[in-house]
């Protein structure tokens, strides 16, 4: 039995339990596809516009369409105001999200076009990039973009020696023992490929293996909620 300084989650969840989920598809009427995904207090809105003509033209790919993801946090989404506009963190998250979503979309039929995915976070309590990806996957499906399968993302982690699923802000800031290790991970729904993987902290190989296994169950549950939301567009579904 490993002893760890992190014994209990303040919101009463089991270590492998997800925060309550709320999801809704079709939240921005003028968009081709849109969705809201909320995990605990973290809420993300994703909007898809396209396939459409690409500007600037020099970015065009004559072989297939490109996916362009922009992720931004609203200034008032966190306690310490974030200056509106682009940030380096936002650009990094946009890129890794783009790589993840690119694995499942099929844009061969749309050369020289772009599918724009815009992710905004109005309220944050950790896990914003994974919430963004979960919303974006639903929005892409709703927009009718050809997709091989869905994607679900979750932030797993380790607080001192305790492994957890769906890290919240309080846990991100946990400093005792080995401190916090944050591992955002995204899996494809059918082929179970890892399309997003980042890590911050310190972890052993067996612990990481365990975390990846734990993330599978979490992602399966998230997939179910995404499916429910897509099957009842316009309705708020809970999970």
């Amino acid at each position, binding site marked *: 039995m490993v002893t760890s300084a992190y014994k209990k989650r303040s919101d009463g969840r089991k270590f492998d339990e997800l925060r309550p989920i709320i999801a809704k598809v079709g939240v921005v009427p003028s968009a081709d596809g849109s969705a809201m995904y909320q995990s605990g207090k973290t809420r993300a809105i994703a909007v898809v516009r*396209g396939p459409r003509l690409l500007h600037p033209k020099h970015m065009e790919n004559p072989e297939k*369409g490109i996916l362009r993801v922009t992720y931004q946090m609203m200034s008032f989404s966190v306690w310490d105001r974030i200056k509106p506009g682009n940030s380096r963190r936002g650009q990094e998250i946009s890129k890794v999200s783009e790589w993840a979503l690119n694995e*499942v979309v099929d844009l061969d039929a749309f050369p020289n076009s772009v599918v724009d995915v815009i992710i905004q976070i109005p309220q944050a309590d950790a896990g914003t990039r994974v919430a963004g990806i979960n919303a974006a996957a639903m929005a892409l499906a709703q*927009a*009718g973009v050809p*997709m*091989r399968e869905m994607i679900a993302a979750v932030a797993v982690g380790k607080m001192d020696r305790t492994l957890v699923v769906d890290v919240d802000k309080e846990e991100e800031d946990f400093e005792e023992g080995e401190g916090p290790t944050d591992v955002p991970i995204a899996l494809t729904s*059918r082929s179970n490929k890892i399309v997003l993987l980042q890590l911050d902290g310190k972890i052993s190989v067996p612990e990481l293996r365990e975390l990846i296994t734990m993330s599978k169950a979490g992602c399966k549950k998230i997939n179910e909620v995404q499916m429910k939301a*897509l099957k009842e567009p316009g309705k708020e579904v809970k999970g």
Partner: protein
Amino acid sequence: MEERKIIIPGETIVQGDEFLPGDGARREGQDIVACKYGLSDVSDKLVRVIPLSGVYAPRRGNVIIGTVVGITFKGWLIDFGSHINGFLNVTEVPRYIGRGELRDHFDFGDVVCAKVFGTDGGNVDLSVKLRGFGRIQGGQLVNVNPNKVPRVIGKEGSMVNLIKVASNCDVTVGQNGVIWVIGDKIEDELNARKIIEYVCENSFLAGLTEKVEDYVKNTLKLEIKQTRFENAEIASENQQEEQPGEQQ
């Protein structure tokens, strides 16, 4: 025929060797899997996904309604709301247009009804040579999800004819989801718009025709009387070629 249901990408539609994957589906081992969000359709062992959304993909023979957004010395660039623009060459217009006369013929912001005659090489080539095509004047445009167009047209044009007769308007449906409506009174055009929107909102329900008739008679309080528009015949000729025609 199996019941249609909303299917999401990656979801298994049916299992079995005897099935064949059609549009929006693929085979993975024993499973026929959806590659698109839409309604699953299994008929005669052919499994496909009927899209509920997604950009309009122009096909040869389609009728489209679009706006002139560019003019070169060779022709006009037409925006019909897709991920590519269409090109109308001067040679595809039923009269001679000299250099420098293009703007007099079709100007920026003009709306044209054209036929797609080619989609090779990533370009969409348009023509207005046939009767009934060309610049549209008067009336108004109603934009709908292009995936709902088959419902708006109906089996052999039955739904669009119902809309015409109920609203007393002429209605031309572009496959790209732009519909041109023209009537004697603007009120009539707005009625046509309301019926079209009703069809789109309820497109996936069974017994759509009865529901639309009910909406027309009881909500809009319109009679279904005869129309005397000559264009109605040409418009339906044009519609006849294109109908993936949904079963109702």
